[in-house]
């Protein structure tokens, strides 16, 4: 029972102290993106891991958050924090409306529909040149600031992003251990039984889709302000697939697994740079091995591996 607060406190401590070791280095910058990706993976995991509903369009929600923040703050000088809230609300409202027809679909059909949604949004970023700047992107996004504190370097951005990430992780853990979390997992296991138990399956799926889009848009806004530049290429189909991969590698239905999945798949390409042309092959191999030997994801696989490697103390006594 008491393990949860300890786990979370440890995570907070590690997150707060990490810059002491990495600041100044290139990794600091990567860790900012680990934070952003963790937000996205937690968001997608609520939908995919808990409720069992796939989305291949989450890069689109992420992109919408980024573009709304970029455009409203750069060209219209609206307060960035306000825009961040507006963007998240608008994107989740959009997801809510789209969710009703789309989440009626199941399995491959749901995958196709959300894929289509992501592609439409991506095409919009590319083609609406007047608004979005088209394929070459949109620059001049201001950094976020609080009073005199401007989030303009890696360490500051790290703390900015990770305060969001840590709060979202806490809220997601709470949610997963509540009647809503159980209802979501119930939908995953047996939709018909969940309905008989009084769960409004249709509404709850749409609500969680909207919540997931809310968090994704938030991540998008942060991304825009951290990068000060957005371009369609970051929000394409392949990023949606990467997010799904992170959820699965980390562990379906595990919030902490989301963090592991995001961290591994964000750090790995950086670490594999040394292998130059072979990096993509090694990356692929690691994914294959991870799914083969850790079918429950890192969050269940790592403890199992540790238990197998570490000497068992009980056996002596």
């Amino acid at each position, binding site marked *: 029972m008491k393990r949860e607060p300890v786990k979370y406190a440890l995570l907070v401590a590690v997150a707060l102290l990490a810059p002491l070791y990495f600041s100044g280095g290139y990794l600091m910058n990567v860790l900012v993106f680990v934070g952003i990706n963790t937000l996205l993976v937690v968001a997608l995991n609520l939908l995919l891991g808990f409720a069992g509903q796939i989305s291949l369009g989450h890069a689109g929600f992420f992109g919408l958050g980024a573009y709304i923040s970029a455009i409203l703050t750069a060209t219209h000088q609206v307060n960035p924090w306000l825009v961040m809230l507006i963007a998240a609300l608008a994107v989740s409202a959009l997801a809510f409306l789209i969710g009703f027809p789309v989440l009626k679909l199941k399995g491959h059909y749901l995958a196709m529909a959300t894929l289509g949604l992501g592609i439409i949004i991506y095409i919009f970023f590319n083609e609406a040149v007047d608004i979005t700047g088209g394929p070459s992107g949109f620059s001049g996004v201001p950094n976020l600031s609080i009073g005199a504190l401007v989030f303009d370097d890696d360490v500051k951005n790290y703390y900015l992003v990770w305060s969001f990430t840590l709060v979202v992780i806490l809220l*997601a853990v709470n949610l997963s251990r509540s*009647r809503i979390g159980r209802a979501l997992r119930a939908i995953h296991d*047996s939709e018909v039984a969940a309905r*008989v*138990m009084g769960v409004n399956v249709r509404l709850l799926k749409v609500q969680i889709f909207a919540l997931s889009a809310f968090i994704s848009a938030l991540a998008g806004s942060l991304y825009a302000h951290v990068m000060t530049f957005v371009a369609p290429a970051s929000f394409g189909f392949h990023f949606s697939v990467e997010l799904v991969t992170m959820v699965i590698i980390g562990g379906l239905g595990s919030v902490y697994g989301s963090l592991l999945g995001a961290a591994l798949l964000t750090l790995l390409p950086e670490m594999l740079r040394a292998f130059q042309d072979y990096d993509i092959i090694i990356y692929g191999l690691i994914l294959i091995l991870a799914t083969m030997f850790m079918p429950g994801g890192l969050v269940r696989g790592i403890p199992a591996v540790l238990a197998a490697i570490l000497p068992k103390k009980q056996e002596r006594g």
Partner: protein
Amino acid sequence: MLAIRGITQVFGGLTALDDVTFTINRNDITGVIGPNGAGKTTLFNIISGIYTPTAGTISLDDRNITRLPPEKLATRGMVRTFQNIELFGQMTVLENVMVGLHTKSRCGIVSCAFKFPWQISEERRIRDSAQVWLQFCGIEELAGTTAANLPFGKGRLLEIARALAQEPQIIFMDEPAAGLNGRETLELALLIRKIRDRGITVVLVEHDMELVMDVCDRILVLNLGRKLAEGTPREIQENPAVIAAYLGEG
């Protein structure tokens, strides 16, 4: 209490139920029997809102509930178990029953995410009453087991515990004794009576004639989608049409 009037269900060219009319009395244990394919499960699927019938109406206490979906019926105190067990396999036994308390709790996404004080006390209440229903069904020692790992008989009991947690006024059980051994079936009979003694109306589909004749107050016999007979266990046992159908089946 529950009036079934002229229920007909057609699947493509197949008439699974043909103009079935029947009334279920409050606080009775009612049995629905009939050979395989008679339409018993289909009748349960219609009553529980999973199918919409081709024709006919269902009313609960004189209120029409024919087109209500299962989640609405749950709030009106109607619940069921499934012939092919439908547990939440990845969740623990206790969590399964906690889902059964969904209609008895209120907290939404926001209160759950922020763990507001009233959410914490509600969660405690959900956990405590789930424990009580596990005890009621005699599976409290399995609370922490993952539901998918339960032996078959315990799975059936868990389905019942989860359904009872809703504190329904009426529970429908589709073949609760299927796959149970002799001792488990006897315990089930006791449990069914215990449920009725709490003021819950029980309707069960069952093939085990000994069980049905033993616990039921009234029986509906279906054959090839039609109502063949209804009455007390004794009347049914002596009904020539029923005897013919069952002997004819071999």
